[in-house]
């Protein structure tokens, strides 16, 4: 481990400074100041990251930079430290975060131009970066958790950015709460680890599980607990419900937080904690299964969505599912690889979608789009490239990562299975299908736009298109940087079973074929417009309704959790418990006392002779008692 001159701390603090500046002064000093600060500091952070990265490279493959910022709290001999840890994994993540982050900041200057709360927007965005960096750079799970909750907060704020619309505010709340559920699991896992190991530093935890004497706790339990946290953050079943609603936020936010970075935190966490999962086959199994299920179901939903951003949202969910499949079968590097490629093309797609929405003045329904290819060419081209990339058309970035994931799902010696591969490929097929469907309906098919909308259509400013180009380029060539090998020293790859080695090439072809098939299907169905598609939908109405309704998971949750909770709180706790039983008893006692008081008052009749009688009664009583007990 090599010391550094607080570089990591600087990286983390730069965006925070941005937040503070924009938050306090932004409104007074105006948009230019805001843009400069808002974009400048993340870019600085990016450069700093590069600097740190180079240092790391010099330090050697499995080296790590560690920075101890300060001691948060100390109890007894145990101390909770705020320390930063920079190895190749965090390096990759940090680069993605700062890099893509900076790009999207730049993009936002164009997208959000003229918005009333421009400064607030950038403040939040910087805040998000700050927390995200804390998350990926934190050495101890505690720091990581701080970032973990922090990004949740930032996403809450950004989803509800346009809070006048109750639906948007509600979406933000939903996201936060759902994440919190995950966080509870995370916390438990954290407590358990701390209780058993007495430390929260991830490297030490990994080491402990790798060590000769296994810790006195079942890795699977810890693994599952942490994974619950991951499902929350990375929108896996059963906690996936928040991500689609999160699209309520401004599109760049969706790109940055809900596609490129935050949602991959779960993946990062599991990869980071690989030391545990390597020794927890059961937990890994769970991860894989959840992942593949999420991937598949999300894809099926995406097939019928008509809101451009919703489609992308579900595709994100499904891609994340694939990443978890990779994690589940021990191909941690590969998962990160997909995080990395996915960051590029999904960001590109979202920003492209943003550009489209921007061009159409807020229209998001692809059924009222079409024929945009000529009107906004740059957006179209970049969008097309990204689509191809996510669909897995070689030699674009998505192809490599996805292919590797499927390969490991099939062949990994650590839980790989044919079933995983089959479902995964099906997902890939659908992905390619709905993405090209999106492409057709948005850009190529004859226009279905209303007149004045069509009139306004215009290409976005360079600040946006430029970013699109860059991202498109990255998503085209990004695949050639082979991340898994690069990460090998810190993230060991599961070995494929020899018996299956020879399938490797076949699978590649299959993968390509799948991608192409999806493309062809989409073309056949949608190049003429909506008609065929609708006809097909009409053929299977119930299936269509089911998919359109996202399997009615939200409704289910509301019926199973939401309403009962309110009912119990209101009827049982409030009315029955507080008001009836507890206060009822007290009021009853009070009333009784008053009644008794009345009785006693009536005994005081005012009759002198009655008083005497009472007294005599007393005397007789006393005498009798005394003489009986003497």
């Amino acid at each position: 481990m090599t010391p550094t001159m607080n570089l990591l701390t600087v990286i983390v603090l730069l965006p925070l400074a941005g937040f503070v500046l924009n938050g306090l002064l932004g409104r007074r000093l105006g948009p230019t100041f805001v843009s400069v600060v808002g974009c400048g500091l993340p870019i600085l952070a990016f450069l700093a990251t590069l600097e740190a990265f180079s240092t790391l490279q010099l330090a050697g493959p499995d080296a790590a930079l560690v920075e101890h910022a300060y001691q948060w709290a100390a109890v007894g001999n145990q101390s909770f430290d705020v320390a930063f840890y920079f190895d190749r994994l965090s390096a990759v993540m940090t680069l993605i975060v700062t890099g893509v982050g900076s790009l999207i900041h730049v993009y936002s200057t164009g997208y959000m131009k003229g918005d009333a709360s421009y400064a607030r927007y950038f403040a939040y965005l910087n805040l998000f970066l700050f927390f995200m960096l804390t998350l990926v750079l934190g050495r101890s799970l505690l720091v990581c958790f701080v970032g973990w909750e922090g990004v949740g907060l930032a996403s809450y704020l950004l989803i509800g950015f346009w809070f006048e619309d109750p639906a948007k505010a509600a979406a933000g709340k939903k996201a936060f709460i759902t994440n919190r559920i995950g966080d509870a699991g995370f916390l438990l896992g954290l407590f358990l680890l701390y209780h058993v190991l007495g430390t929260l530093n991830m490297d030490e935890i990994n080491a402990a599980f790798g060590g000769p004497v296994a810790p006195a706790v079942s890795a699977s339990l810890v693994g599952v607990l942490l994974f619950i946290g991951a499902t929350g953050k990375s929108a896996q079943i059963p906690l996936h419900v928040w991500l689609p609603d999160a699209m309520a936020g401004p599109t760049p936010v969706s790109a940055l937080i809900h596609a490129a970075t935050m949602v991959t935190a779960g993946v990062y966490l599991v990869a980071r904690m690989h030391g545990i999962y390597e020794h927890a086959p059961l937990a890994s199994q769970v991860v894989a299964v959840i992942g593949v299920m999420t991937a598949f179901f999300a894809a099926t939903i995406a097939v019928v969505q008509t809101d451009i951003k919703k489609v992308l949202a579900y595709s994100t969910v499904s891609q994340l599912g694939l990443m978890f499949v990779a994690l589940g079968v021990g191909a941690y590097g590969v998962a990160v690889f997909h995080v990395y490629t996915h960051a590029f093309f999904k960001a590109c797609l979202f920003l492209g979608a943003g550009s489209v929405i921007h061009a159409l003045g807020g229209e998001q329904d692809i059924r009222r789009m079409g024929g945009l290819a000529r009107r906004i060419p740059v957006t179209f081209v970049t969008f097309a490239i990204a689509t191809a990339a996510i669909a897995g058309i070689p030699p674009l970035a998505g192809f490599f990562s996805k292919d590797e994931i499927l390969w490991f799902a099939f062949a990994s010696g650590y839980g790989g299975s044919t079933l995983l591969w089959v479902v995964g490929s099906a997902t890939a097929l659908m992905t390619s299908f709905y993405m090209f469907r999106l492409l057709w309906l948005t850009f190529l098919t004859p226009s279905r736009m209303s007149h004045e909308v069509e009139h306004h259509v215009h290409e976005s400013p360079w600040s946006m298109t430029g970013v699109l180009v860059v991202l498109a380029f990255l998503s085209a060539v990004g695949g050639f940087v082979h991340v898994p090998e690069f990460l090998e020293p810190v993230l060991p790859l599961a070995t494929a079973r020899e018996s299956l080695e020879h399938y490797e090439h076949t699978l590649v072809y299959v993968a390509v074929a799948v991608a192409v098939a999806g493309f062809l299907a989409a073309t056949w169905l949608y190049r003429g417009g909506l008609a065929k598609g609708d006809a097909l939908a009409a053929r299977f109405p119930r299936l269509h309704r089911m998919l359109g309704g996202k399997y009615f998971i939200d409704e289910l949750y509301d019926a199973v959790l939401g309403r009962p909770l309110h009912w119990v709180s209101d009827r049982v706790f409030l009315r029955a418990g507080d008001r009836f039983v507890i206060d009822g008893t007290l009021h009853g006692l009070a009333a009784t006392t008053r009644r008794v008081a009345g009785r006693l008052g009536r005994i005081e009749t005012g009759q002198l002779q009655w008083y005497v009688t009472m007294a005599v009664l007393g005397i007789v009583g006393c005498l009798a008692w005394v003489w009986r007990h003497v």
Partner: protein
Amino acid sequence: MSEPMLLNLLLWLPVGGIVALGFVSKGRDPLVRSITFGCMLLQFVIAAVLYQRFDGLERGLQFATDVPWIASWGVSYRIGLDGLNVLLVALTAFLGPLVVMGAWTAVQKDVKLFHAMVLFIQFTMLGTFVAQDLFLFYVFWEAMLIPMFLIIGLWGGARRVYATLKFVLYTAFGSILMLAALIYLVLATQDGNGLTFDLRHLSGASLPFTAQVWLLAAFSLSFAIKVPMFPLHTWLPDAHVEAPTTGSVILAGVLLKMGTYGFMKLGFPLFPDAARAMMPVIMTLAVISIVYGACLALVQDDIKKIIAYSSISHLGYVMLGLASLDLIGIQGAILQMVSHGLVAGGLFLMVGMIYERTHSRAVADYGGLARILPLFAVFFSLLTLASIGLPTTSGFAGEFMALLGAFNAAWPAHLAGNQVPLTLAVIAVSGVVLGALYMLWLAQRILFGEARAPHTPLEDLNARETTILVAIVAAIFAIGLFPGEPLAKTELAAREFQQRVLGESVLLGSGAR
């Protein structure tokens, strides 16, 4: 000035203030306010100095005074700071000036009496915390009822009389039994040289188990009412809702801590064996309070009620941390006390501010305040986040450590085959979700959505209010980011508490048998 004098000054300053107020002629309210504020401010300064000079590594009392008071029965005026009370004293002194500022324009009726009562209650609360003599403690503890009775009853809302009587009768019932237990305890621990109420002496004594159980039950009743713990909590919502802002702030900010402090300072250390035996009960009640309070907060339509119930839930964490008898848990509990004091106090102040403008506390009357009152919205959301225990706020530090402590205590029990503590801990952790649920829902309903208020235009927070809130928020984040500083002062005391209660029993956490 000698250091014990400093503490005495801190304690008696409010009384001086009251006397001073006595000489203010009728109708000179500004003067009254400034005198009170001056007192509080000075007190805060003194408290700050004391806090700075307090040495966390030194055993026993600091700045202690010990003067015989009623010699014939070993009662003496015995005060001092130790790790357990130093933070609470600081908190009380910190909230003092803010409370007065908060009531600057709100209170227009019987201003003099009002401020006298505020000073009086400040006096009693500080006294309760610094008292190191059981009799003295009880006197302060009980005397606190009088000013609170008047504050709620005179300047409160529509059902104020009901609320204040409920509060006083609830509390008094607890303390009556405590009085009996207290006398019994003192008589039972009487040794050769007569009676004594010295806490050090008392907590050194050891009683037969059954006696301990009875006594602890009596003490606990009184403390649990004050905390309040389920099912003795129903006075709190009424008191909070009907009380004037000041009352609510004092209630939530400091008064409730007296209950938890009581457990920490008296209840458990005096009767360790019984305490260990009763731990499961207390833990269970604590967890019930957490969930119950949260659920009830979920279905309220009065902002103050929501915060009131949230207090029940948050103090559940404190009790959980204490009951865990794990060092981290205890420390967390102490931290959570302070944190809750700041957060709930701040929230009530904010409710007061908005109420002063619109005279409505109904959630339904508000919406989109983030648009109408941006500054208000900022502070309100900050406090909301602190209240749901978001990292970097004090709320997180407290909750995290308290829960960690509970878990530390629960896991060995689980391994030993006793699943109850673990279940409780897990429920408590998931209570975090509920916390977020009701607070965010509240924020969503009043801050977001389309702009709506009983009557517009409303002017945003003025300088005075902003100052108050800045102070509170600053404190919240200071503690959230650097909890190590205060914890260093309390650690020794916390450990002594733990050792005293655990006694010989090695099985950490599984205090139950």
